[in-house]
């Protein structure tokens, strides 16, 4: 009997332009269903958590279950303000890009909770190794919006001297490692930084960040190997926003399992969490931070969310996915959900929300005006071309001095 010919399995998303989005196969546990283990739990005992989703906010906007209750109304309102600010910031910067004031931008629409909430779980001195989609970390850490914009505009006041693509911020002081652009590399560096802290007998921890698509990169594996072997004090954050440019998450994930489940082969505890639920996200991140700080080592967290906007200003998602998909996304909008919760708590109202939005808009506008006074990519004051030759090394070697002379700067 001749064997049957083989064929290549190529995964396909459920929905392409023209199809009707259908998330009925996406299993979502009820809020409160997944319980909170002790931070020194044996990873084997919580294997199920890699296949479920930690959720706190229910449909009614109530916070339920034992991951709830950690945050005061003030803290929640602060979180809401961070998310509102980030959303407005994104809108303004996208527009600025379209106006030619800069070359490039990537927004956070739909996934604002992830970076804003995780920021709250970290302490001063801890270090994030972010991707280009975690500006919430900076906003929540109080990095000035104007400085962020100076970077976006590559203007004369840009702390990075115009060298970096917009959104590749850097601020050691705010626990934000210089964004690379190369996917995956920094997930691993986070582990190294955490190992450094452990070697030095310090108490600081690191947080690595990676997208769903980028978990396919090899440095993801290197990060897991090093984190598990040396029990590095690091929080390993996977932001599963379902898409990697035009590739749905199934291209990186294979047919079965979850991204969180990748932790199991390494004995690293792994948790999936509702990334559009500010409370759940912050609670899980705090759990992981506590674990790391108490010497229990790494935690792998998959934040389940949705990239509601285009990949970046260079992208047009209508070519590869249904424009209705975002609205059909079952975990809702993170801002709306936190807003409802605060209203349920009687700590917020539609009016206060409108007012907060207006305030956010005001803050961002003011910052933008100030930033634009320092120049934009094409107009006004610019970083000096002479700067181009600096800081390749600490001290400029002779060949760069010669080249700078040759360039006439």
């Amino acid at each position: 009997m001749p064997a049957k010919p083989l064929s290549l399995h190529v995964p396909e998303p459920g929905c392409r332009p023209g199809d009707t989005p259908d998330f009925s196969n996406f299993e979502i546990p009820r809020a409160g269903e997944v319980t909170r283990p002790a931070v020194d739990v044996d990873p084997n005992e919580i294997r199920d958590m890699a296949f479920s989703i930690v959720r706190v906010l229910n449909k009614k906007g109530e916070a339920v279950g034992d991951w709830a209750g950690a945050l005061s109304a003030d803290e929640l309102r602060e979180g809401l303000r961070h998310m509102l600010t980030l959303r407005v910031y994104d809108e303004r910067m996208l527009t600025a890009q379209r106006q030619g004031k800069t070359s490039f931008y990537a927004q956070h629409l739909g996934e604002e909770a992830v970076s804003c909430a995780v920021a709250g779980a970290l302490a001063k001195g801890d270090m994030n190794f972010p991707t280009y989609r975690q500006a919430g970390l900076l906003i929540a850490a109080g990095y000035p919006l104007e400085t962020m914009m100076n970077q976006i505009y590559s203007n004369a006041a840009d702390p990075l001297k115009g060298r970096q693509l917009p959104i590749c911020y850097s601020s050691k002081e705010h626990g934000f490692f210089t964004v690379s652009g190369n996917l995956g590399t920094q997930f691993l560096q986070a582990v190294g930084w955490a190992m450094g802290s452990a070697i030095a007998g310090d108490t600081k921890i690191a947080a690595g960040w990676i997208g769903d698509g980028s978990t396919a990169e090899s440095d993801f594996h290197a990060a897991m190997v090093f984190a598990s072997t040396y029990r590095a004090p690091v929080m390993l954050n996977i932001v599963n926003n379902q898409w990697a440019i035009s590739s749905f998450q199934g291209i990186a994930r294979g047919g079965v399992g979850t991204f969180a489940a990748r932790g199991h082969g390494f004995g690293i505890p792994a948790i999936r969490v509702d990334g559009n639920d500010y409370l759940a996200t912050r609670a899980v991140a705090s759990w992981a931070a506590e674990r790391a700080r108490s010497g229990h080592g790494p935690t792998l967290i998959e934040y389940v969310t949705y990239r509601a906007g285009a990949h970046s200003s260079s992208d047009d998602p209508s070519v590869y996915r249904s424009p209705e998909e975002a609205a059909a996304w079952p975990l809702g909008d993170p801002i709306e959900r936190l807003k409802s919760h605060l209203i349920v708590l009687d700590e917020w109202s539609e009016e206060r929300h409108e007012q907060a939005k207006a305030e956010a808009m005001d803050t961002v506008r003011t910052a933008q005006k100030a930033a634009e006074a320092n120049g934009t990519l094409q107009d006004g004051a610019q970083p000096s071309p002479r700067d181009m030759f600096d800081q390749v090394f600490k001290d400029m070697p002779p060949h760069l001095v010669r080249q700078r002379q040759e360039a006439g700067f």
Partner: protein
Amino acid sequence: MARMTMIEAIRAAHDEAMAADDRVVVFGEDVGFFGGVFRCTQGLQAKYGKQRCFDAPINESGIVGAAIGMAAYGLKPVIEIQFADYVYPGFDQIASEAARIRYRSAGDFTVPLVIRMPAGGGIFGGQTHSQSPEAIFTHVCGLKTVIPSNPRDAKGLLLSAIEDPDPVIFLEPKRLYNGPFDGHHDRPVVSWKNVDEGDVPEDDPVPLGKAKVRREGADVTVLAYGTMVHVAQAACEETGVDCEIIDLRTLVPVDLPTIAESVKKTGRCVVVHEATRTGGYGAELVSLVQEACFYSLETPIERVTGWDTPYPHAQEWDYFPGPERLGAALKRVMEA
């Protein structure tokens, strides 16, 4: 003969090769349904099916390594690295494996494989969307390295690269995808559709290893490739120096006879590339020229290149070796 952009020409080369040979398969990040972030593979999945054109996980080593396995099996993979800046994670599979499998197995296994990647700057892509890493490939024996400067060559060279029995690195100057670009970034953008150079004949492979004299001249030989070919033409016109401009097209194996003949005639040579200078491919060209033409040279060979810094975002045009910088070098060698 159709008029095409370089993107369309690359697409057409894929199409012809896939139609002619079942073994040609195409994959890479976002190349399947979407057709690639620069759309160079648009329509191929619809036409040839998901088994022959598909999305890959974001792992450049995985893409190259899987393609090596496929090539060893007997297919002819044509893979896309989304930006040349992101090829480094795949470098080990390229340098240690693809490049050496024929040699180390004494021909028992071979790797007919094309690795395409958009390269070069000029689109405000910053340090991670602007690099020209050709020199790390040209140093690796067992690899051919190709870089076209116009749609016709892009199609013809890509067809030859796919035909080739060995691994070929195929760099596509992304700033030339839609039209010629001579470095005058402040002038209106021109489309290939509006210039004669956009004409692409059917079924016209351009052989690997053959340079093309783009302009004959008596004063100085300019060795260029990719975007710099257009910069050279601009610099030549603007300075009035009577340049002989050679578009190398293939960097390894390089067309030394064409180069040497020209330099022996002109007695002067300027090498131009966008990559950082130290250890760039220009250094190899300088070495070859001074080895082959030492006694004909009247002045030192000059290198006009990107600076030895990462490709900056805001200072893009200070970094880019445009017609002014090249022009100054041309004048220097003429006056030396």
